[in-house]
């Protein structure tokens, strides 16, 4: 959203972030406070964040599309630098005690060369993209058609991570969900409603269904994001299911839908010829 705004104000203890983006466990609060602390050159502990209620904070646009870090974090980095210029060498708390509250706000503008219209919602919706590659190694039981992912490797490039341990957690969590989507999670719809919305009949991966994961974060700072960051929120959930399906295809099964449950695989046709799946091909030929 081109109109997205973010603000920063001094408080008796330091500064308060004013944004509409919500913390739902993904680490937004920590990550935004890190950006502000680093932008201002103050300790992390002196940064608090207002409740994301637009009666007290500006409209920063929605918490969607992996944009919070890159777009809203970017606005906050600008706010922090502007505030630093205004207050000079004093700390925000000292400035607040002497001069009263200082409030700065920044509004998002599309980067050079990017076209977007808020009227028609047309144009280049994204200023940049993150990149990922997933590798799933699977074991398929030829009798029961049970599939296990034995090892999973995720390589992701999303600029420079602001908080590498939390970014790793986003990738690991999304990868596990993606593998669950590929092999277990079957939404049954009846009369426009999900008929299996309980954990007893909608099965998600446990510790025993989730393989060891290798996560590689390729650092490639992006000039348009705060401290070189892009977004990592959603990307890591996109690749795992295709990777698992491709592994099953490599094993000779013509899988075209998910979840690839044993019941579904039992009636999945075999591929005629697959590199490295000569057994399957031979069996086919013998029939």
């Amino acid at each position, binding site marked *: 959203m081109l109109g997205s705004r973010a603000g920063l104000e001094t408080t008796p203890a330091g500064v308060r972030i004013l944004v509409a983006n919500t913390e*739902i*466990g*993904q*680490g937004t609060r920590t990550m935004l406070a890190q950006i502000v602390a680093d932008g201002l050159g103050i300790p992390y502990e002196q940064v608090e964040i207002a409740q994301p209620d637009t009666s007290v904070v500006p409209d920063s646009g929605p918490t969607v599309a992996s944009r919070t870090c890159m777009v809203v974090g970017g606005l906050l980095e600008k706010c922090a630098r502007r505030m630093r210029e205004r207050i000079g060498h004093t700390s925000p708390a000292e400035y607040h005690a002497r001069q009263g509250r200082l409030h700065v706000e920044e509004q998002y503008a599309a980067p050079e060369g990017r076209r977007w219209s808020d009227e028609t919602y047309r144009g280049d919706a994204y200023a940049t993209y993150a990149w990922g590659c997933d590798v799933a190694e699977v074991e398929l039981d030829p009798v029961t058609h049970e599939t296990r992912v034995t090892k999973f490797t995720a390589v992701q490039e999303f600029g420079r991570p602001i908080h590498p*341990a*939390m970014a*790793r*957690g986003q990738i*690991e*969590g*999304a*990868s*596990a*969900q993606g593998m669950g989507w590929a092999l277990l999670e079957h939404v049954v719809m009846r009369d426009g409603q999900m008929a299996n919305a*309980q*954990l*007893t009949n909608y099965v*998600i991966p*446990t*510790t*025993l269904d*989730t393989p*060891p*994961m290798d996560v590689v974060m390729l650092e490639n700072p992006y000039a348009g994001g705060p401290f070189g960051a892009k977004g990592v929120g959603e990307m890591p959930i996109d690749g795992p299911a295709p990777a698992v399906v491709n592994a099953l295809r490599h094993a000779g099964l013509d899988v075209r839908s998910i979840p690839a449950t044993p019941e579904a695989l039992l009636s999945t046709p075999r591929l005629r010829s697959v590199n490295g799946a000569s057994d399957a091909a031979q069996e086919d030929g013998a029939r």
Partner: protein
Amino acid sequence: MRTRFTLNGEPRELETHPMRRLLDVLREDCGLTGTKEGCGEGECGACTVLVDGEPVVSCLVPVAQAEGCELLTIEGLGGDHPLQRSMMTEVGAQCGICTPGVVLAAKALVDAPRKPTLARVREALAGNLCRCTGYEAIHRAVLAAHAERHAK
């Protein structure tokens, strides 16, 4: 009916219906909201508490069954168990709903002197669903906590 048990080291006595879920008695009557409800049907482990040292899902236990038992909830750990610290440093919690249950379910592994294998950690936590972390950070936290707890 009057029910007596020891809760986080303190004797408690309360008047309540014997068939109420231990989960509700802990959260509503005792005010200990650290114990979470994920599914309410025994599948997710978010409501795990220790009853006489054994992990149980408090959403399936009528309070009458806790009569005379020693109960430990996440509040009883006081915040400085090595596993609580390592869950912070390894970022073993994202939304945090599974976290109290995970910590209590893994506590015995961390406290036992024998170093657990990764397979043992997975097995011990197989009843605790986590939608956010993919479990990897939780496993790292359990192993790190064990190392810290038993460092010479």
